[in-house]
């Protein structure tokens, strides 16, 4: 087994993946997407509460 060649491939793959990942903004996204919110959610607390409150406190209701 040519381990230097294996290392070359590994390093190249790591750097290429890092470059593409960094440029395209790929990473684990911690956010939840909440849709169909009213347009005045800013002024209507009852219409939009945080996902945490929505899911945990209100049981998703």
């Amino acid at each position, binding site marked *: 087994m040519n381990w230097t060649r294996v290392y070359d491939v*590994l390093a190249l793959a*790591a*750097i290429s993946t890092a470059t593409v990942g960094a440029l395209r*903004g790929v990473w684990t996204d*911690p956010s939840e*997407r*909440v*849709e169909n919110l009213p*347009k005045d959610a800013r002024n209507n607390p009852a219409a939009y509460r945080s996902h*945490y409150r929505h899911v945990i406190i209100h049981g998703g209701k």
Partner: protein
Amino acid sequence: MTRTNCPSCGALVLFSSQATLATICGSCRSVVRQVGASLLVDAKVSAVVEDASPLCVGTTGRYDSRAFQLVGRLQVKHAQGGFWNEWAVVFDDGRWGWLGEAMGALTMYEPEPAGQRTPITQGFGDFIPGEVVEIGQVRFRVREAGRAIVTGGEGELPCAAGQGWSLPFVDLATHRGEAATIDFSDDTPEVYVGRVVDFEDLAFAGLRESLPADHPMARVANAACDTVNCPSCGGGLERRTGAQAESLHCPYCGAAIDLTKSPFTVFAKNDWSGSLANTTFKIGQKGQLEGVEWVVLGMLERRLPRWDIAWMETLVHNDRRGYRWLVEFQGHYTWVEHLNSVPLAKVTEVMVPAGAGREIAPLDSEGTTRRPTVDTTLTFREGGSSVVTKVAGEFYWKIKAGDTAELKDFVKPPWVMSSEESEGERSWSLGRYLHRDDVARAFGVELPGRWGTVPHQPPPQDRWLKKLWWRWLLAVSAVVLGVIVTAATSKREIVVSDSFIVPAPTDPAVLQILKSDPGSPIADAYLDSLVRWYPAFEVPSGPQALEVLVGTNLNGGWMIAHGSLYDEEKGVALDFQEDISYYAGPDWSEGSTAASVILPSVDTGKYSFRFEPIFGEHAGGDIAVTLSVSRDVPLHRWYGLAFFIVTMPLVWLVIARIAFIARRDKQEEEE
């Protein structure tokens, strides 16, 4: 140049230089001496015998920026056996000197300059090996006080010497490669000084190999060998190094044949079992190391009875480089050269002399070390009394089964320097651990398995570390470049920045509701009152990474940070939460007072940021919060991951290397 006729036979003889005092008639072997206008014949001398030397009369070279030519030579034989060449050298500045050639090793000597001659007050018999003698402000050590006789000669000489002339000499050397010899053949001792030189450094031209094939001295390197008939069984044996060979061991009957005098005689009978027939290397086999071709001359097995271990030593020869030993122990190989310089030795340490290891150092193309410097110090590792148990082939000294020697090994991987003491003589050699792949490649052989470690074995990981080191450096450079480029092209613009206090709930009714019914309208109203909305901002040219940084003064408490990016136009929000807690004691702490959240891929749009803190508990009461949101931040964590991936193999190799060294040293201590 003076051409004249030999007074003895009338043949043409030459005096090509003013330094020439005598010339040897190639026809009648007379030593013709020029005294004024007269030619005198004082003695005769035999023709030189074949000795596999690559040099010949007429060879030119350079030494210390001076051109020189070999104009003649004397073959001299040591009183205790073994002989060497003293080549007469004439420099282009008219001076002369001697180039000693023994076992392939070269030493250039010149007479001390007039007016700077060192007076020698000691008699020949007063010099003791090891004693310090100062010559020309250099402190030499006596290597040997010995006697030799002239056995042959050719060409022109700066002195008159005839057959059988006695040459008492004292050889001296320094740790740094300087050499001197005191010639006691005349009433007034003469001192010659110089240094050990490498074949390649002398820029030789007109070597013997360049002579036409029909020239009497022509010889093709390593190709010529003559046949010796075993005096015991009559078997035809090949001799490859001519007169350099002093003993030859018959593979058919085990006779040890003395080649130093004719007719050849059997000086010992080896207890022959024929077991050396199955050795890794065969006599006459050729291999490429140091960039030159070596031919196997002989091999012997040595044993340390004290530890009941044995190893093989294979003697190889090259016309230009002389002799090397390939030592084989438990599938480990060491390439060894004999040292002509004297190492600086203490009880437990020895320092490599100048020039040593120069040729054997770089022979491993994938090796891990440079050549040793003159101050490289090796540490005593082991020693003991060894005995030769098996022997086959030809050797440059009279060896036989049963010969004993005291061995001492000094080690600094991959180097091992060994002293061998036998019958009052001490010789030194320097060996380098040789990777088995290089041995197999060099000689084109299948090698037996390897087991255990040897003290001078370098960590096998070094080979890979050497190969991977620059690759790692290149990869890390690429990673750093990536970080720099992404940092330079990212704006990292702060779009939200705020500091505020999250008050600890104090109303008992609210506290009760939060605990018993957190989904109640009262609880919601309380939590809604803590929500903070920030002005909308644009995310152009998405997707972009956004970073939310939340800092607190938490100390003995926790809170939850809810964040949302709200796209009012689309009615979409990206919600995230982060628990922040920090507890600490006098000598401990856990958690962190701050949190960072990366939203890696936020699409183009206009967003409002909503922040909702949930007060958990805090020993200090209210929680002070600092908040910032930055857009277009670089995702450096990708490069952190890449760095980890490219570095881990090297970390693993370094750990394995440390483990190997510990195992090797422990094994040696146990032995």
